[in-house]
């Protein structure tokens, strides 16, 4: 059997086994809620905007409803699979994953989880294929990587899909610019790959024809966005604003701020964080363009910079970078340990196993006991542990950004340059300072 096929089957098998039994209830609930509303012809974004408005109205705090705040292309990916679920279970298909005590119907929940995660799993399979074709070892690494498995099959977040689209966009950037633009447009289902937009633009600027092609592809992928901007701009923009304006959060160097006074204070810090983030991004984009770094290195660096400096970076975001980063020889694979650890002290691992524990009262009581014991054991220290993990990630990632700049031999002093020119044998035999 061909190695790529073997790895694809291994990766697919593991994901299919895990997928039905685990979930991040809130995040899966977001996709479920949006898919249901979308299929019912409701305005998904208006709902989020209204909930946000009510939340703000009732508290006078700049709060956001954590609902569907992704580009509408996402709905076209997930809604068909939710529709399939409702076709299999036309009557008893009610789910309420966003309730404080989620009601899980059995065995429907297993089918639902398998189906709703299917686009992500298929995306992973495509990534394994693309990587294995280039470097079998990398394909296997991705297929078996606990972090990727955790995000795809356990958590059920769709950042690996972003990773697939970015990888595919990069791979066909030189030869099929329209397709590259289209795939990049699809990667924007989660808005953060927007940090790569100036890079894509700058790399296409030299050739107006290529730029037009890229923009054409991007526009085609963005048709649903254009539709919402025309038909329901208010709700759409309000909901999308969430991603740009939400308060500092997640696995990043701003984590200490979370223990500060409250949301108003955190909002003020977020403004500073946004300025820092924007400045770093501008500087780094300028640098990678000025230094004419390879496209892959540039993309990895900018995405890493996002992970380090963006005000909100969650555990799953690295999954969007993994496929690309693994192609880069300079990527530090240790980075994926930290989000995996972070989740244990943030959502806690047991939270992901609710579909298993919710089967009956005994298991549910066990869940409560285990969760209680975990919180009792680490509750008082969890924020420090999370900060520790966040800093570990930030520093390692920052070091990795450095590593993606090609180290070159410093320019020699003119005197030595003269000697070098005079000695052709030495010059031709001089070693390159290429680093791994």
């Amino acid at each position: 059997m061909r190695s790529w096929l073997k790895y694809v089957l291994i990766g697919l098998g593991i994901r299919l086994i895990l997928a039905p039994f685990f979930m991040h209830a809130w995040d899966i609930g977001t996709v479920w809620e949006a898919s249901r509303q979308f299929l019912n012809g409701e305005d998904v974004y208006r709902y989020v905007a209204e909930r946000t408005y009510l939340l703000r109205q009732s508290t006078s705090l700049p709060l956001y409803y954590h609902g569907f705040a992704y580009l509408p292309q996402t709905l076209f990916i997930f809604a068909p699979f939710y529709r399939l679920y409702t076709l299999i279970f036309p009557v008893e298909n009610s789910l309420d994953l966003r309730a404080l005590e989620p009601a899980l119907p059995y065995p429907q929940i297993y089918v639902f989880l398998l189906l709703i995660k299917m686009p992500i799993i298929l995306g992973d399979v495509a990534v394994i294929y693309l990587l294995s074709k280039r470097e079998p070892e990398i394909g296997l690494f991705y297929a078996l990587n606990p972090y990727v498995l955790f995000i795809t099959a356990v958590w059920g977040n769709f950042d690996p899909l972003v990773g697939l689209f970015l990888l595919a966009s990069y791979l066909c950037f030189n030869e099929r610019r329209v397709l590259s633009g289209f795939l990049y447009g699809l990667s924007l289902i989660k808005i953060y790959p927007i940090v790569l937009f100036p890079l894509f633009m700058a790399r296409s600027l030299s050739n107006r024809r290529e730029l037009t092609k890229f923009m054409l592809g991007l526009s085609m992928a963005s048709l649903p966005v254009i539709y919402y901007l025309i038909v329901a701009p208010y709700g759409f923009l309000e909901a999308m604003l969430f991603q740009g304006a939400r308060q500092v959060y997640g696995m990043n160097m701003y984590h200490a701020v979370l223990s500060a006074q409250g949301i108003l204070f955190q909002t003020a810090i977020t403004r500073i964080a946004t300025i820092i983030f924007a400045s770093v991004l501008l500087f780094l984009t300028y640098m990678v363009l000025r230094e004419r770094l390879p496209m892959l290195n540039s993309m990895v660096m900018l995405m890493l910079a996002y992970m380090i400096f963006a005000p909100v970076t969650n555990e799953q975001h690295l999954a969007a970078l993994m496929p690309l980063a693994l192609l880069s020889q300079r990527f530090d694979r240790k980075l994926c340990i930290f989000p995996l650890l972070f989740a244990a002290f943030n959502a806690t691992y047991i939270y992901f196993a609710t579909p298993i524990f919710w089967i009956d009262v005994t298991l549910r009581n066990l869940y409560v006991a285990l969760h209680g014991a975990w919180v009792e054991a680490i509750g008082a220290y969890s924020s420090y542990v999370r900060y520790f993990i966040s800093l570990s990630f930030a520093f390692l990632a920052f070091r990795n950004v450095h590593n993606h700049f090609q180290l070159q031999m410093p320019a020699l002093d003119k005197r030595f340059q003269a000697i070098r020119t005079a000695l052709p044998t030495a010059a031709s035999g001089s070693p390159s300072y290429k680093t791994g």
Partner: protein
Amino acid sequence: MPNKSLARPKMRTFADVLFVVLVVSLSFAPFIQVRGWDGYDSGTFVYQDETCYIRYSDETIGVDKPHIFSREGWPIKSLVDIVELSDRQSFVNGLNLYEDFESRGRLTDDGLTIFYSGSPQFTKSITVTDEGVVVRYESDQPMELRLTLWRWYFSSVEGNDYRGAPLPLKVEPKETLNFQFMDEGRTHGGVIRLSDQPLSVEVCRDLNGLNKIIIDYVGSHLSIKIALDDASRSPLKIADRDLLYPLLSMVFGLAYLWVRKYEVLVKIRLNRTRH
């Protein structure tokens, strides 16, 4: 084109140092003490100033509504638990505030106002004045209000520790109640001022001491002002935030700079030995 910028050791070091400075600076953010009210999306609200810290609806349990603390100590302040008004132990017309009412908090110009939905409709507002924390209960109609003030433990209420006294431990109902408690070996005195004379006041105890003051009142408006006798107002004190964040960031920062320095040396040596 040669890589002139970050590849240069000086530039790289500068970027590293800048990054470490940024991380360390951010770790001090919890020390910034902003005076006033704030909140969290969990429904928790907090107030803090130089001398006082109030928490409304703790994130995990959500029953302390509000929990009033004082800030004591120098240079690092610690929180001194004064008293907690518990919704779980408070009733309006026999209905439990925690179980039988839906409530939502809203920040207003004066402070925090809690709206209870149900019948009767009433609000609880919490404001902070120079003289103490004022918790005000207001209803559109007369109500039978039972409020419970918790503390583990009061040393005495109205100068009496009620040791050996027969139950129930009744206190003469009046508009001002004094209480004392111990914290870190120091005795503090506090005062509760009611806007109206209550119907009755009772003190409860468990095996370790006095832990509750129950106030019964009938009317449509009652305000309770709670203050410490000896609250100091020195603005020089810093907040009581944990030092672990800056400590961690500094250790990480220094370790990172050390590793980076070492890393560069190793690379240069390797290149030189090889060629």
